């Protein structure tokens, strides 16, 4: 019985070794070159959308930030005139 178990362990180890050896084999070399025209569309990476996105991001951030500053300045101006008016009223009393 012990011999059978020993043989099974040896066979298992050999099997594992064979599997890892097969896994480490380099991939099969191509048997012929494939022209670029037949490659599927989604595998190409055109640069134009990336460039357009990059410039759009820049302009969105610039205009978004300028708008945010303009809005905050308008808000502060409104508050300043309101508080100045209240202060002038309080001083008159």
């Amino acid at each position, binding site marked *: 019985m012990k011999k059978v178990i020993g043989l099974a362990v040896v066979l298992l180890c050999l099997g594992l070794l064979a599997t890892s050896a097969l896994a480490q084999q380099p991939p099969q070399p191509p048997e012929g070159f494939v022209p670029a025209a037949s490659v599927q569309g989604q595998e190409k*990476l055109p*640069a*134009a959308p*990336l*460039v357009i*996105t*990059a*410039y759009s*991001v*820049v302009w969105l*951030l*610039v205009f978004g*930030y*300028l708008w945010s*500053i303009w809005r*905050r*300045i308008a808000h*502060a*101006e409104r*508050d*300043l005139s309101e*508080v*100045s008016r*209240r*202060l002038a009223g*309080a001083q008159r009393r």
Partner: protein
Amino acid sequence: MKKLFTPLLILTAAMFAYAPVAIQNAPYESTMGLVQKIFYFHVPSWFVMFSAAGVCGIGGAVFLFTGRKDADRFALAAAELAVVFGLMGLLTGPLWGRKAWGVWWQWDARLTSALVMWLVFVAYLLLRKYGGAGSEKLSAVLALFGMANVPFVYLSVNLWRTVHPKTSVVMSLEPEMGRPFLLCSLAFMALFVLVLAARVRLENMRAALDELYLSLED
């Protein structure tokens, strides 16, 4: 600055209006092709980020050592610009990298150190917003750390092995590429001066408003 604001605004608008023409006329780079044109806005956005980090750090140092409130207002305004223009650089870079390197992001020295520097200024703004009383001094120290990062980020491509192009790229540009790059850099720096002036004005107005509220309570 008030007298210079309008002429500088007109000049900046003219430079940004002509920039797309100049970039379009610039030749394609031999290995990267069209995607390299992101460089004309990507690098100037980092120039602005570095300048903003410098202004923020110096403003923070002046505030720490002299207690001048106007220096603190400059630092706060510059920190916001550092975050906005840093975000610009962090978003445009991966769009370039996806085509040039095949990946959106690489945890190499330049990209990681730039991200860390940007996060320092995000932390600065969060500290100012939620830190409560006394956060001005803490954030001024943080601004100094942020500014100290600038040389490391800039020189990281020369000091460590990285996939990012080296600093020598800018100085070795052919004139056909160098001229549009110079135009974009000047346009971005002029925009930085204008936006910083507007942002400092906002902080001055807020400070005036706080004083008025105190007078009203008295």
